[in-house]
């Protein structure tokens, strides 16, 4: 590993290296598009569109619907290089190469399936997208189902996706939140922690509550009321720090009254029901 007396080969490497970096910086295939495919449960309809070859620029499709089908299929396959080729110029301005697009993908729940909804508009497509439900501090909420609305743009003689999808979470019935909290509070009152844990969406729930803390071993009916929107006050500060302000949109607060001082239970829509993730007085 001689460090001194750099010779002609060293100088040659300068040019080589600089060219390589310039190429990397401008690349639109990112070079990391050989990711292994994962098993998916797609509900995509049959399509006649052609999968874009790897390593190329935008591949406009005959319709926006075709572009969205290909994009979501690529997302299911954990293939951001393929989905990147369905992006229009404006979105490519935001994510300048596959690497940047890939980073953004890791901040979102990966689709496990999708179904395109019928629609009449040429430049807008909606799809019901499914995910493996969950809640973690890296992605936040992975809703079981959400409606994604894609705007399209005509470029290069075909259609591409113009912007990131607008997302509408498809929530479980609010009544199920009351049921979940009733079951959880009943388990806590019976000091059956395992049963309570089974209704929790995370191992260590957020917040503290005198009322909830005194519930174990108490006597008398526990009443969970209809869920309310979670407020943006101290009761949600830890939740926001962990899951971003998105938590205000998807979390609910269920008032609980009974043998102890009143308190609230925070629930999250994990899967097709609601799960307990926090308490506060």
């Amino acid at each position, binding site marked *: 590993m001689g460090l001194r007396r750099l010779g002609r080969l*060293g100088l040659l490497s300068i040019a080589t290296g600089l060219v*390589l970096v310039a190429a990397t910086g401008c690349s639109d295939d990112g070079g990391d598009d050989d990711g292994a495919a994962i098993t998916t449960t797609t509900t995509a309809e049959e399509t006649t569109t052609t999968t874009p070859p790897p390593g190329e620029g935008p591949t406009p499709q005959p319709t926006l619907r075709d572009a969205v089908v290909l994009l979501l299929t690529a997302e299911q396959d954990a293939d951001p290089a393929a989905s990147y080729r369905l992006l229009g110029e404006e979105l490519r301005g935001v994510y300048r190469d596959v690497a940047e697009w890939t980073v953004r993908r890791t901040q979102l729940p990966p689709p496990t399936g999708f179904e395109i909804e019928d629609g009449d508009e040429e430049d807008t497509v909606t799809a019901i997208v499914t995910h493996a439900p969950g809640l973690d501090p*890296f992605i936040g909420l992975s809703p079981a189902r959400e409606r994604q609305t894609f705007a399209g743009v005509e470029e290069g003689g075909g259609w591409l996706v113009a912007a990131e999808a607008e997302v509408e979470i498809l929530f479980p019935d609010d009544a199920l939140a009351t049921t979940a909290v009733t079951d959880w509070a009943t388990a806590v009152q019976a000091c059956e922690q395992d049963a309570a844990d089974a209704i929790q969406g995370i191992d260590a729930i957020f917040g503290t509550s005198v009322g909830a803390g005194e519930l174990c071993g108490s006597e008398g009916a526990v009443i969970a009321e209809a869920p309310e929107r979670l407020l943006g006050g101290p009761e949600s500060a830890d939740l926001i720090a962990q899951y971003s302000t998105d938590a205000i949109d998807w979390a609910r607060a269920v008032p609980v009254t009974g043998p102890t001082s009143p308190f609230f239970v925070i629930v999250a829509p994990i899967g097709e029901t609601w799960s307990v993730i926090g308490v506060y007085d």
Partner: protein
Amino acid sequence: MRTRRLLATGVALSLAGLGVAAAPGTTPAGASSHREAPLIAADPVADNTDVYMFRDVNDPTMVNVVANFIGLEQPAAGPNFQKFGDDVLYELHFDNDGDVIDDVTYQFRFRTIVGSGATFLYNTFTIDPETRDNQNVQQVYSVRKIEDGVSTVLATDVPTPPVNVGPRSTPDYNDYVEPTVADLPGGGQVFAGQRDDSFFVDLGSVFDLLGLRPINSAHVAPLPDAPGVDGLAGKNVHSIVLQVPITEISKNGDVPTDATDPDSVVGLYASSSRQRVRVLSARGTAPRNLGQYVQVSRLGIPLVNEVLIPLGQKDKWNGTAPKDDAQFFGSILDPEPTRLLPVVYPAVFNDANTPDGGAANRPDLIQLLTGQVIGLSAADALPPADLLRLNLAVAPVQGTPSNSMGALDADPGGFPNGRRLTDDVTDIELRVLAGELLDDDGTIDGTAIPYAALSDGVQVNDRPELAGFPYVGDPVSGYDQPATG
């Protein structure tokens, strides 16, 4: 060797320029990357101060990575002691195929748990090392790995140890470490928490017009020669320490054995990111964070952003991925510290013995950025980028004060082949920037002065490192914080 432009402007003018860049009291202090850029200096919990990567001497199948945050952390920081940011995404990015794009990424998110909001106390009595009983403010974290587009949560709710409060609260502090080391699926382990800052540098002198106390008398504003003073002595950081099997991060999933094979080299940088939008509340409640995560700090090779990237580019640098580093090569390959040497030490350096800037004149820096100084041939050079690169086929070498100069003393196990906690990167880079690698005889041309004389005079950390994982030394306690002034 160098252009006359700087000298032609005259020493006084040049010093005026220096005043803008480094006048004491007008710019933030910095170390390896402590408070190195304007924006991140105001955001210490996201400020990545140092990153280290080295093969494990106790288990050569493992690689250790240390990423430090919260630079210049005062041990006596109660009642609200420092902690990781609950709203910060911390990441370690590995590139194993040389394209300067993530192949394996480890992410860390923290969460603070307050036992009781009805007291101001961090802890209510002596904290139990095993159960953390009496620790009112605790922090846990989760770890996620991303590879080939697939994310896997490796660990959740891993506890961090309490900060080192003092002998009443956290006696025998090392007892708090082992219970918070967590094994990872697939091998390896992880730790996160307060540690001593392993970095050592004469912060006070270096940023006082590039002063080196041992050669103070040669400075254009001379002072008596003096031993170096470790400006980070008695200061803590918060460390994320990850140990992973080499097979988890190497390109071919093996333990490489051919040091000349580019597949044996892995590149690393650490980063922190915040959500794009933060909305403050007028009612004293917590801020709201919105939008995707954007990078606010990064670090690979030590001191690059600190002393090579100009002030006007530093924040941009922190927000840029290494794949886009080409835009900064003008600054890196024409290092400002090199240009300042003849100004600050005119009795030693002049335009004849100071390297010119530019790619053609600094092949040594190109070699540093392309992996050629860690075993690769010119033909196999990797794209230049600010990645801390480690040749996984090179056997680990225990870092000690006696081999702290790493590759400059022909030690293949030290910086820039990765970076050990004991490597004296300040002196190494100072000598390299001055042109030692371009010279043949080890002395500054036209003088009898060896490049080794270029030193801040601090060659060892003030506190010992640990012999085993997590390796970084125990933090200074608040009670024992050295008096200042």
